[in-house]
């Protein structure tokens, strides 16, 4: 792992020698710089200033985490942010670049351009009854916004939640009213491009009320960009009683793109939430996915696929918090690791004392294609109830030589045999995509990847 971290660091800064002292200095610099930026911009930002001030205070206490931080020990985010990064809201994405990152023809499209809601680029003019989609910065007067905003993502839990809460200047607020079924997917397209190195902090809130149903796709792309973009994106999701939300994330940053993506979900009684995360490229991708199951008979599905290569670092942290009895959660994350890339899967499941009759399953499978790649996998089950069914499993291996030989013995070249097997490995996750157009898109991306 160390070798991988070093090579990534080299890419981003000329030297990390004397790392201890330097890290300390960097910490002061980066964190202080951001705090200063907050002071000068806080009065122009939307919403509750008091909340932002709490957030910046919490951020200054936590600081940008380095590898001494248990939750961030596999990648030094501090080093990633060592260069001259500034909080940015510049909007420089061209129409042509936009055309390249569209993936669904039949969807309500919301464009988040460099962290801000873009009314011009979005196509949400004729929404059906029962659904509201708007710039989160203009939603502060909405009752549902007030009830749910910043209620699930706790600024004291994570420095990036604090950073986002303090600095966000926009994003999307989606409200699906009670009993409303929205067949057409809603696609939130995060697209970034910066003239100078920039940190952006888009903030989304999705509220799916009682007995409502929706499908929401979030995609992330950094288009040709002179500066590096560090996207600290945060989405809070509320799923009301008996509601059903299919949630997809397609992370296809460019080779220099950096994404720290927090998803904080909260489920009520008998709701069903399935979240599917596909990481296809990006220099650094960190996913923090936290789901709270706070009533009975809730169902939660977490699926993930990460394909890493080059010097990429992809880090998936998931937390499923079973607080009440009779709920089911099922988690499957799979990864294919090539070259010198490194992936981490850290899957935590809490089963609290009251959460009897919980079924919680977790599986993480990896294929390591090179000797220089790294996979860190860490399942963590903390169970305080005594009548539960929980299991976790993890496997890491190379492609099965017997399978390769069998295919070659039928006339397939070694390359196409491997391609077929990697495709098959990934398909277990891909087939969970219930939006056909999206499934085809991801399939095609994977096929192209192994071509």
């Amino acid at each position: 792992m160390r070798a991988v971290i070093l090579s990534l660091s080299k890419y981003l800064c000329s030297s990390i020698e004397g790392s201890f002292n330097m890290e300390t200095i960097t910490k002061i610099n980066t964190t202080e710089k951001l705090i200063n930026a907050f002071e000068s911009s806080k009065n122009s930002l939307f919403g509750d200033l008091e909340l932002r001030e709490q957030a910046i205070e919490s951020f200054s206490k936590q600081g940008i985490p380095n590898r001494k931080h248990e939750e961030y020990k596999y990648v030094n985010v501090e080093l990633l942010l060592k260069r001259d990064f500034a909080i940015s809201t510049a909007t420089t994405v061209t129409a042509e670049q936009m055309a390249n990152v569209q993936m669904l023809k039949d969807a309500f499209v919301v464009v988040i351009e460099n962290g801000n809601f873009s009314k011009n680029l979005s196509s949400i003019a004729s929404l059906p009854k029962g659904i509201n989609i708007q710039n989160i910065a203009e939603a502060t007067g909405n009752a549902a916004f007030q009830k749910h905003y910043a209620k699930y993502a706790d600024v004291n839990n994570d420095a990036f939640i604090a950073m986002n809460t303090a600095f966000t200047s926009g994003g999307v607020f989606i409200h699906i009213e009670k009993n409303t079924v929205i067949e057409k997917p809603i696609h939130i397209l995060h697209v970034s491009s910066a003239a100078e190195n920039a940190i952006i902090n888009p903030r989304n809130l999705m509220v799916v009320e009682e007995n409502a149903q929706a499908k929401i796709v979030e995609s992330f792309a950094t288009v040709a960009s002179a500066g590096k973009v560090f996207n600290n994106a945060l989405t809070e999701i509320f799923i009301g009683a008996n509601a059903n939300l299919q949630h997809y994330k397609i992370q296809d940053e460019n080779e220099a793109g950096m994404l720290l993506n927090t998803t904080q979900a909260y489920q009520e009684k008998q709701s069903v939430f399935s979240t599917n995360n596909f990481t296809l490229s990006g220099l650094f991708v960190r996913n923090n996915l936290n789901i709270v199951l706070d009533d009975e008979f809730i169902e939660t599905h977490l699926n993930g696929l990460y394909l890493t290569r080059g010097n990429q670092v992809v880090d998936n942290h998931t937390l499923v918090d079973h607080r009440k009895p009779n709920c089911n959660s099922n988690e499957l994350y799979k990864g294919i690791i090539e070259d010198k890339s490194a992936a981490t899967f850290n899957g935590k499941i809490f089963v609290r004392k009251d959460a009897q009759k919980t079924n919680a399953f977790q599986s993480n499978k990896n294929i390591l294609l090179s000797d220089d790649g790294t996979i860190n996998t860490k399942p963590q089950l903390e169970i305080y109830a005594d009548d539960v069914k929980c299991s976790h499993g993890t496997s890491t291996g190379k492609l099965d030589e017997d399978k390769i030989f069998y295919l070659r013995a039928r006339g397939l070249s070694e390359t196409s045999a491997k391609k077929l097997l990697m495709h098959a490995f990934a398909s277990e996750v891909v087939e969970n995509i219930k939006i056909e157009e999206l499934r085809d898109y991801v399939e095609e991306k994977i096929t192209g990847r192994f071509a």
Partner: protein
Amino acid sequence: MLSIKNLHASIDGKEILRGINLEIKAGEVHAIMGPNGSGKSTLSAVLAGREEYEVTEGEVIFNGKNLLELAPEDRAREGVFLAFQYPVEIPGVSNINFLKTALNEIRAYKGLPPMEAKDFLALVKEKQKLVELDGKLANRSVNEGFSGGEKKRNEIFQMAMLSPKLAILDETDSGLDIDALRIVAGGVNTLKSKENATIVITHYQRLLDYIIPDMVHILYKGQIVKSGPKELALELEEKGYDFIKEEIGA
């Protein structure tokens, strides 16, 4: 068609084949019999190109080409087919998709364009019937969740699809009930022609009641110690492998 001369092969430094000599002409069926550990499966693995076996001596000429120099896929493309003793399960890869890829890569090797989808499906339908393979199985993942008999029938189905010049059946009868055995043998017999040849590797004589060999060879300790007409198999069944040991003074 196939000429094996003084073939020696070992695995992990242990010699298994110790000088095999075998000549097979187009249109012929040869049975290779032998007790466990005699080298039957090693011979089929070496012919198909398994890399863990090291050929230390000898040569194998297949239709004028040095087979041992070819990659496993090129052997398949030249027309060698191995029906595996233990077919591998490959979850997530559909039988049909896999066969289409295989067939088209073999065609590309021969300079032929990919097969039309319509023709391919017609071929699948025709060949499925031959081994009484359920259409549903053909659409499932390769061998995943198949019974032992279904796996063996799937091997013969693949063979029918790829129409090889030389088919090597490695203990295809092992674990088959009599009905499945008849179906598998029926498939093999239908595919037999003057242009192709078959090597049937088996421990038991029973399969040879259904697939009648032109020659029977007895493999023992890595060498062919006795060859003869089909009656040799019956003799072997009757007297057991011990008679070979006595005969060659082992």
